[in-house]
């Protein structure tokens, strides 16, 4: 007896907001702001390299908190509700997005103006890291890896953050300072990375109607008609 009076998302906002891991995000955000404030705290010794490095560390810290965004202890209880996963995940994202934007603005403003890297470039980097965290979480849920993938995703994100600068090919120049002539080209690559990860995240947002198996492609006995998908 569905009793509907308006879109689900409007009514869902309030209870869903309570299920978000705000404490995690707050802890990560606080540490992130502290990291972003390093150049200011360092005073005389600070330079542009320190500023851009602290902003990068700050973005990683916030993304580590955001990796827990899709954790939902009640996931299996609500496994078979008609409200689509894309709506539920989308609402969580929509609730966090303004917080993230506000937080990032604060982090940028904490860096002294003369040391601050170009905002557009560094923002693309931060967005790519954040989207990587969220896509990781969406992918883990898509694969059916439990109700709370946050911890594993945070580990993956941390490993990427540590190993990325060590292992990424030098020619990509992803981790350059603003005075480097490759800054602009590097941020074209960051933007590309952001789009790729976003696309992967979008693919993971939908709930699969059928399991993808090689055998299905080879045998005609799959009775679900693929043309209806």
């Amino acid at each position, binding site marked *: 007896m569905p009793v509907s009076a308006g879109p689900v998302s409007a009514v869902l906002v309030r209870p869903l907001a309570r299920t978000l891991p705000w404490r*995690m995000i707050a*802890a*990560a955000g606080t*540490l992130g702001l*502290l*990291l972003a404030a*390093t150049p200011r705290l*360092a005073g005389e*010794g*600070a330079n542009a*390299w*320190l500023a851009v*490095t*602290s902003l990068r*560390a700050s973005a*990683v*810290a916030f993304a*580590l*908190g955001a990796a*827990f965004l899709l954790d939902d202890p009640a996931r299996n209880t609500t496994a078979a509700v008609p409200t689509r996963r894309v709506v539920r995940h989308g609402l969580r994202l929509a609730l966090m997005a303004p917080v993230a934007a506000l937080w990032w603005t604060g982090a940028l403003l904490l860096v002294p103006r003369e040391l601050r890297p170009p905002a557009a470039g560094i923002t693309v980097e931060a967005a790519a890291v954040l989207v990587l965290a969220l896509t990781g979480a969406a992918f883990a849920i898509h694969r059916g890896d439990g109700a709370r993938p*946050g*911890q594993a995703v*945070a*580990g993956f*994100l*941390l*490993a990427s*953050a*540590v*190993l990325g600068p*060590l*292992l990424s090919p030098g020619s990509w120049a992803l981790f350059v300072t603003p005075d480097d002539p490759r800054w602009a080209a590097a941020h074209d690559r960051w933007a590309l990375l952001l789009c790729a990860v976003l696309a992967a995240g979008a693919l993971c947002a939908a709930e699969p109607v059928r399991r993808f198996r090689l055998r299905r492609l080879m045998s005609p006995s799959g009775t679900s008609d693929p043309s209806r998908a």
Partner: protein
Amino acid sequence: MTTTLDTPAVVAARPRASWAAVFALARFEARRLLLRMPVLVAFAVYLAWIVWRTRDSFGGFPALQDADRATQGGPLLVGLAVLLSANHAVLRSGRYGTDRHFAVLVLQPWRRTVAHLLSVVPVTLLATVCVAGQFTWEALKPGAVGHGSPAELLVGPLSVLLLGAFGVLLARLLAAPLAAPLLIVFLLLFSVFTSGFGGQGWSRWLMPVVGEGSSHTLPSDLLGRPAAWHALYLAGLALSAALLAVLLSGGARLRTVQAGVAGAVALTLVGAVGQSRDVPQETSEARTRVSVAPEKVQHCDERDGTTYCAFPEWTPRTGDWAEVVDGVRSLAGPGAQDRPLVVRQRVDARYGLDSDPLLAPSARPGEVTVGTAWGGNRIPEFATAVAGVLVTGKEEAVSGICDGRMVTVMWLALADLPDPMAGLRSVRLDDSDTGSAIVVSQTEPLRMSAAHTELVRELLQRPRNETAAQVRSNWAELTAPDVTTDRVAQMLGLDVPEPDEEEDECL
């Protein structure tokens, strides 16, 4: 179902059984820890790094007092992975709600903490094996000299132990899975910050791995690094973190744990104080002695008319120097072929590892300076110095060459190398083989004009013996001060280069 009236308390009262359980749990946790994804990835990357780096590190001629410090950075990666995984292992029971079951088990929480701490030990041992492997590889290279320090080698494994113990402690302080990743980000930025900025004095020794600003090699007894104190400090810190974790998980009632924490903190303080003292007086004096009057500590060896004076740790390397000297000498003209030469090893150790001071050229006739490093670019640089002394007679005079003699010097230096053109590029600061450039040397740099470069390149492309004969027959004029580059070209049968504004211009 029947119930027996044997109370479990009987089992708990047998301490030996409890400790056996602790070790069994430690083995179980150690296996899980070793197979955790972050630890596996960290070890894979670490091993790949060891192989990639050690294949051609130090140009194939490592000084073991440098090679020991080169083992310290890699284990940090493993340490961070262990911090994360050990932290999650302790939090696992809370995460899956099994802590309610565990709370009533015989094994008390503090013993479980001990088991988690012990589970870090096998990973540390594995890291130790990796460090030992990397160092042994360096030590087995035929060109290896010097002495490694066990205390420096211990820093890597101790860092793994410290970070692992810290992961367990953190889990007992904050039962949040996010704490460890955030701490790692913080530690990374903090280490970047301290290594780049607050870098001087005692505070830099508080970090697990302490790098040096300079890359030059000193005799092992002049390093002045408080390596043993630092190892003690790290061990004390790891022990303090471990015992504090035990204390926090209910071991506070135990006298031994209280005493242990006090002891470990004392050990840490002793290490911290020990490592923050200045370089000892006798080391400073020895540094000055070695820098100012190296002949007092050197051992000299004569071979084919050349005397090789090396610091004690470097005497095995005189053979490598002799090969270069003989090669250059064989191409030189009459008189120079059997001019007595002294190859003297020199180092400016007065500032320790704080800076890379440039050595002044030797003022004694027939004396060539060789540094403490060898392999790679050092070989053509040394050959250039030898050729310069053979041509001018004195090292001091070499850097002043701006006339046609530069062509002879460079040809002599490079012609006997396996790949002379590569040698030419490697001694030039900008790695070029055309145009004018600075030539790097162990003492003061030389300068090649575009014309010099062109002539040297042409000579190197001609058959060596033909040029050698021409050089020998024109030796006196080729090595005369103020000989013009045009004249040198004529004597060696080359086209006179295009006139150049800076030609033979001695600045």
